[in-house]
């Protein structure tokens, strides 16, 4: 059994544990009742998005300083995972919205900013695929940093743009201790899952680069 498989099994176990805590352990919330349970994975995913894009930014900076291909691979892998978690936030958000406000999309602040974030990093990948091989890594690193600098500004301005529809501060205060615990465990589970997928994605990137090297070597010969 490889180390990656071990992390994978750990991630799966953590996820099932989180599910147990969410559905059986945590008390049902008073106003939103069972639908509130979407919140555990929805918000945890949103946090993981920040971590993922943060890792992209960090390794982009490291790449610009050290110029190791490894760092670029980690940055790209993490950006892609950020998009995956972003997609989850964007899909579960409307489900919540549909129940709570009877509409699929209502320009609620944090959902809107997540959408902008999602578009930003989709653009990161579109641009990356169009760049020439020599400049690709440096340029996407620059973009990775600029995009992340944008994150707080986007969140802040969207927050002002739209008053708070989101169950933010006041409901959080009323969370039952069991809910807090379930939420922490969900977040932990998603973090472990993030690490696992990051390793998998990074491996894929390395395999791709190995394959390209061999292909070029063979082309040289002929």
């Amino acid at each position: 059994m490889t180390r990656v498989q071990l992390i994978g099994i750990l991630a799966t176990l953590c996820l099932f544990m989180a599910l147990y805590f969410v559905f059986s352990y945590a008390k049902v919330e008073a106003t939103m009742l069972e639908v509130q349970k979407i919140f555990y994975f929805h918000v945890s995913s949103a946090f993981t998005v920040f971590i993922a894009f943060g890792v992209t930014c960090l390794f982009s900076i490291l790449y610009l300083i050290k110029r190791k291909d490894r760092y670029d691979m980690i940055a790209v892998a993490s950006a892609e995972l950020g998009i995956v978690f972003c997609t989850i936030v964007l899909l579960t958000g409307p489900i919540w919205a549909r129940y709570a406000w009877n509409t699929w999309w209502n320009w609620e602040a944090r959902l809107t900013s997540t959408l902008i974030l999602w578009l930003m990093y989709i653009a990161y990948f579109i641009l990356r695929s169009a760049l020439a091989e020599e400049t690709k890594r440096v340029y996407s690193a620059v973009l990775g940093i600029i995009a992340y600098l944008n994150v707080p500004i986007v969140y802040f301005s969207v927050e002002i743009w739209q008053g708070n529809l989101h169950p933010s501060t006041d409901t959080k205060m009323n969370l039952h201790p069991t809910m807090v615990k379930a939420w922490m465990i969900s977040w932990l589970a998603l973090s472990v899952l993030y690490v696992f997928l990051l390793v998998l994605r990074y491996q894929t990137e390395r395999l791709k680069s190995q394959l390209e090297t061999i292909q070029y070597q063979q082309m040289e010969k002929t």
Partner: protein
Amino acid sequence: MILLQATQITKRFAHRMVLNGVDLDVQAGEVVAIFGPNGAGKTTLIKILSTLVKPTSGAFQIAGIDAIANPLRVRSSLGVVAHEPFAYLEWSPYENLKFFGRLYGVDALEERIADLLADVELTPFAHEPVRIFSRGMTQRFMIAKALIHDPTLLLFDEPFSGLDVAAKQFVLKLIQQERARGKGLILTTHDTELGYHAASRFLFLLDGQIEPVAEKAEIELTELSRQYEQRLKK
């Protein structure tokens, strides 16, 4: 005086080694001709030596300054003529020279421009946009642009390609002139005859590696051509 010293320069594009351990040095008053077929890495080498492209590994100094760590500092002692004009073709030679001269911080710029344009025989066209120039005229303009700040080391990438006989002779003359002024010069070409006339030392660049050949005093043109043909066949 050593103007340029390069050791073990390598350049990898993605997965392809273009340059594989290039050693090179140029003294003042020396013209080094680098012969090589298309795709041998001549243009890449010139781009690296002109600090426009970073090498994958290796080191080189220009006038004693580490050019990889301080590319901005060494650029003022470089004059580069490449395939592309490196200039704004909507502008006239005069406007280009004035703009680049100012950026370099050239003193007595107006006189310098007048002298240079006279040197390359472009005075009558000083105020025409470069875009309408013939290949030969553009090449002369490019050489003038490379010389505007009186650099000590000149890097010419295929300076004769696409020129007619008269223009080739003209460029040859300019090269000799600059050499007489104590400049160092590297030129790349695949034409052994022109290279022989222009240079004082010869090198081959094959498969990303430099092979020293000879000083001009040691070798005849026919022998040089024969050796080059032979190396190409291998």
